[in-house]
Structure formats: C-alpha cells, structure tokens
C-alpha cells in the first residue's frame, strides 16, 4: 500500500494512538454491561434483616427469612445448652473452622450456606435451612466456636448489637459500600439477648 511512502512514524503513531483510544473506549463500555448483572441496590438493601428476638422465650424457636432462605432461631433451655456441652468433643460432628468446613464441602447445597456457632453457654442457636443433603443438619448444634458468626457466600449481614460476647468487628450495613471480588469471608454477628434489635 502506498501509505508506506509517507513518514511511517507519524502515520503509525496517529493510527496506533487512535486505535488504542478506540480499544480503551470499547473496554470501558463493556463494564456497565457486566456490572448490571450484579445485585442491584434494592436487592442489596434487602440482603440484611433485623430480627426482634424479645418475644422468643426460652424453649421457643422462630423462623425468619434472610436472602430468600429460612433461618431457625432457637432460645435453648439450660438443659439443652448443657446437653450440647456434654457431647464428647471427639464425637462432635462440627467444624472447628468454618473456612475449613467450606473447603471440605460439607454443605452440599449450592446455594448460600448459613450456619452459626455460639459460645457454648449461649442459649441462642441459629441454623440454616435443611439442605438436600439431609435435614439432620437442622438439628446440628455448632457450638465449638467462641463468639457467634454467620457465614455465607457473599457479604453476610445481620444487624444485631454487641452483647456480653467478646468484641467482634461490627457488621457493616447492607446498602453501604460494596465489595467487588471478595467472595467468601466471615463476619461476626452479635445476637442481642432478649433485646429489641433495631
């Protein structure tokens, strides 16, 4: 092609620069198309739930919905707490570290898994919905961990207040900053005992 006859440097630079700008434009145009499939603001706002635990007496349990799944919250009697404590550690079908548990894939459900562990002497137990793998899970009491936490695929929030448990990071609000790219991590959620949670 005859254009070569012209000073190649100047022509090449212009054309290369122009093409580079077009490429950058095309790439940045792509981002909104990808991002629009991520959870939108209303979904993120609904992704946290505040649960009023004051009417739940000892021995009672309630079911609340969170992210489309039921959460079972039970106010255990002293006997139940003691019974769980007395279980031989060797026989406990629980996990010591949730992250490890996730890696071993003990929850077979593909959807967000939610479970919690509490101080041994805490009367509160929160369990996720029974998975296809077995409804036995619903009765599992995961009590080995100090403190309470809720673990899920994405940013897990449950709006509660610090109690007598050891200080843990405050849960962040749902509609606040988003966190692109971090898929699995834990947040410590503190359950208020017998308090109206707002």
């Amino acid at each position: 092609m005859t254009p070569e006859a012209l000073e190649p440097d100047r022509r090449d630079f212009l054309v290369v620069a122009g093409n580079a700008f077009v490429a950058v434009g095309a790439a940045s145009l792509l981002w909104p198309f990808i991002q629009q499939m991520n959870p939108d603001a209303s979904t993120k706002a609904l992704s946290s739930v505040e649960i009023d635990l004051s009417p739940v007496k000892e021995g009672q349990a309630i079911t609340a919905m969170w992210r489309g799944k039921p959460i079972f919250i039970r106010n255990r009697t002293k006997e139940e707490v003691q019974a769980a404590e007395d279980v031989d550690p060797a026989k406990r079908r629980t996990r010591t570290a949730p992250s490890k548990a996730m890696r071993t894939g003990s929850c077979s459900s593909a959807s967000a898994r939610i479970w919690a562990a509490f101080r041994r002497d805490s009367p509160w137990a929160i369990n996720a919905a029974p998975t296809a793998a077995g409804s036995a899970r619903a009765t599992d009491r995961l009590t080995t961990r100090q403190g309470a936490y809720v673990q899920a695929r994405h940013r897990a929030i449950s709006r509660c207040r610090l109690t007598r448990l050891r200080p843990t990071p405050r849960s962040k609000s749902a509609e606040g900053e988003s966190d692109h790219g971090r898929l699995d991590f834990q947040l410590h959620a503190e359950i208020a005992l017998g308090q109206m949670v707002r």
Partner: protein
Amino acid sequence: MGGSTSSYMPKSRWGKWFDERLPIFRLMNDSFVVYPTPRNLNYLWTTGGILTVCLVAQILTGVVLAMHYQPSDAGAFNSIEHIRRDVNYGWLLRNMHAVGASMFFLAVFVHIFRGLYYGSYKAPREVLWILGVIIMLLMMASAFMGYTLPWGQMSFWGVTVITNLFSALDTIYNGLGTAIVEWLWGGYSVSGVTLNRFFALHYLLPFVLVGVVGLHIWALHVVGQNNPTGIDIKEPSDSVPMHPYATAKDIVGIFAFLIIFAWFVFFVPDYLGHADNYIEANPLVTPPHIVPEWYFLPFYAILRAFTSSFLGIPLGQYAKLCGVVAMFGAVVIIAFAPWLDTSRVRSAKYRPMFKWFFWAFVFTCVALGYLGSKPAEGIYVTAAQIFTLYYFVFFLVVMPVVGLIETPKRLPRSITEDVLSKGKGGGSGSGLPTGATAAPEVR
C-alpha cells in the same frame, strides 16, 4: 464477490486448515478488507457503518434491559423505574436504548436522503433499495412496539390510536377491521395482554433485522457502492481497498455520531421523548395531545391530513381509510423509486432541476414532522395537506417528468477524472493504490 477471484492467502497453518473447512475469514477479507470502494465517497457514506453500530447497540442494550424488565401491565412501569434507580448502571443502559432508537432513525433518514440524492436506488441497485425499505419498515414496527413497553401514558394511548387505525378496514369489508384490531389487542382494548405480545415481538424483530441487513450488505457487494458522481467503477484507479481507506473514514463518522449520541444520553436524555410517558398508563385519562416519537411525526401528519375533506375534495366516511392508506403508502412508495425515476443520470449533482425538487422534498419531510407535533386544527391541517400532496407528487410526478425534461450537466468520464480535476493538485502520487482487486461486476 460475484465472479471475481479471491486473493486471500491464509498466513498460518491453522488459518489454512480452517479456510478449507469454513472460508469465513476469506469472506470477511473479500467483503471488508480488499473490497474495492470508490475513492470519492464523502462522509454521507459512513451512515451504513453508523447504522450497523446502532443496530448492535440497540440489541446489546435491549438484551441487558430485558434481564430486568417485566412485560406485565402491573410490572412494566415499575420495572423501568427499578432499572433507572436500582439496577447498576441501569439509568445508563436505559438512556442508551431510548436515545439509541432516536439516533437510529436520525441516521437512517440521512442514509435514505443520501440515496435519493445520489440516485443510489437506480439500476442495478433496485433490490438493495427495496431491502432498505423493508429494513425501515421493520425498524418502524420495532420502535413502535418498543415505545409501548414503558407503559406510560403516551405508550398506552399511542398504541391505542395506531392499532385503532386498522378499524378503517371496516369501510371496505364490514367487521374485517374490528377483527384485526381485536386480534392485535388480544382483547377488546389495549391491555397487559397487548403489552406482553408486543414485548415478545419487540425482542424478535431486531434479529429479523439483522438477517435483512445481511441481505442488504450482500446485495450491495454484488453491485458495488454508488458514489457522488453516480458513475460506476470502471478502472482500478477509481477505487481503493476498503481497508484501511473506507474503514478509516467509517470510524471517524461513527465516533462523530457517538458524540451526538453521548450528548443526548448524558445531558438531555428525555429531550426527544415526551413528559407524559413518565405518568403510568391510565385508560381513564386521555392525554391532551397524543403524539408519537419524533421519527414518526411526518407519517402521523400525513395520517391526520385526511380529515372530512382533503384540499377541497370531500372524503366522507373514507377519511380515516385514506389517511391510513396514505400513511403506509408514504413508506411503500419509496420502494418504487427505481422505476418512477426516468432520468438516465444517477446523481443529483448533475441534475440541476431535480436538485431543487429534492431539497423541497427534504423541507417537506421536516415540515410534516413539525406539523405532526401540532394539534390537527386550522391552518396546521391545511399545511399538512399541502405538504402531503407534495410528498406524493415528488415520487409520482417529479421523478418521472423531471427525468425526461431536464438537461443534465456534463458527466465526468470516470471517477478518477472527476477526482483529479478537482481543485489544486493534491499528494505526490497519481493516487493509484496498489492492492485493489478486480472491480465488481459492472452491468
């Protein structure tokens, strides 16, 4: 294409392997890289590339919007607000799609006017031209149904008015029009049932469009592009390979177009729309003025020009039917241009008499657009009737007659002669690019 041999040589072994099984890269190369393009095309010839970008943009934004849109009468308006407020970049995607429709029509009107001026509809480009009219009809159907989807006041009432037009057929055969209208509606008035099916069709038609555009480009490549002189490519110096010459020009045209597009998307996104469409559809409240989107206004003006009388001719009960026939006829008549125009000269550049009638036609279209936005009363109706008359006179009288009676200017012998005789001497070379393959078939 069309008889010339392909000079494509795959560079890699893999390239050669693939070329023996599905020569798509050969096709791309022959059609869009080495393809001989007239060297004298002006920027009006970038509208083709611009329109392709528009179609792709509408499909991409449309598909992602459809991920959030709900095509029910209860959900539609709310889902649009959800897109505007909550969906990540939803406001941007929605603006792009709405403005994109307007930009699509802006580009297509320039594209068609260009074709009318330079005689691109004349032999051997008749099929190309007819495919173009089919594309425009598909665009109009798509846009009409798309505008229904937000289910605002204008959406609802615009659909009600336009679908009701088919009842004009009742004057020809009793009950036929009503049957068609109720078939379109899926009921006895416009409702969520209508909305749902319009959504399905609105999603479908753009892909039909892609197919027809493919045929359009194929038909173009068989006969080759027209050019401002209207003289076909005769010798190799008349043309340049499409890449990098035409592609470089196309991309400038595309980006210049994107500037206008972006200005509307980011700064005046609702300017080309109507405020009433931000009010939820209400069958009990009729807006004071029902108007379609701006690109339909000329046709709307033609429709409403046929009142009880047209320029003194009484129409009686046939007024509505005449209006409907005229409105559709205004689009269909464009397809007949290749046979209506008797001139042996293609380009209006060399047709001094036709040129004036052409610009009067452009003015007519703009005037009809303005009149379409006005209430159908008083002087607006009279003006609309006059301009409607000229619209059809342009095709039915001007094209046949002027071609016979005018004296065209002297044509250049070839594209090269025309280009070289222009102004002062340009670059050093004779302007003969290497690499152009054989010219397409010249009839």
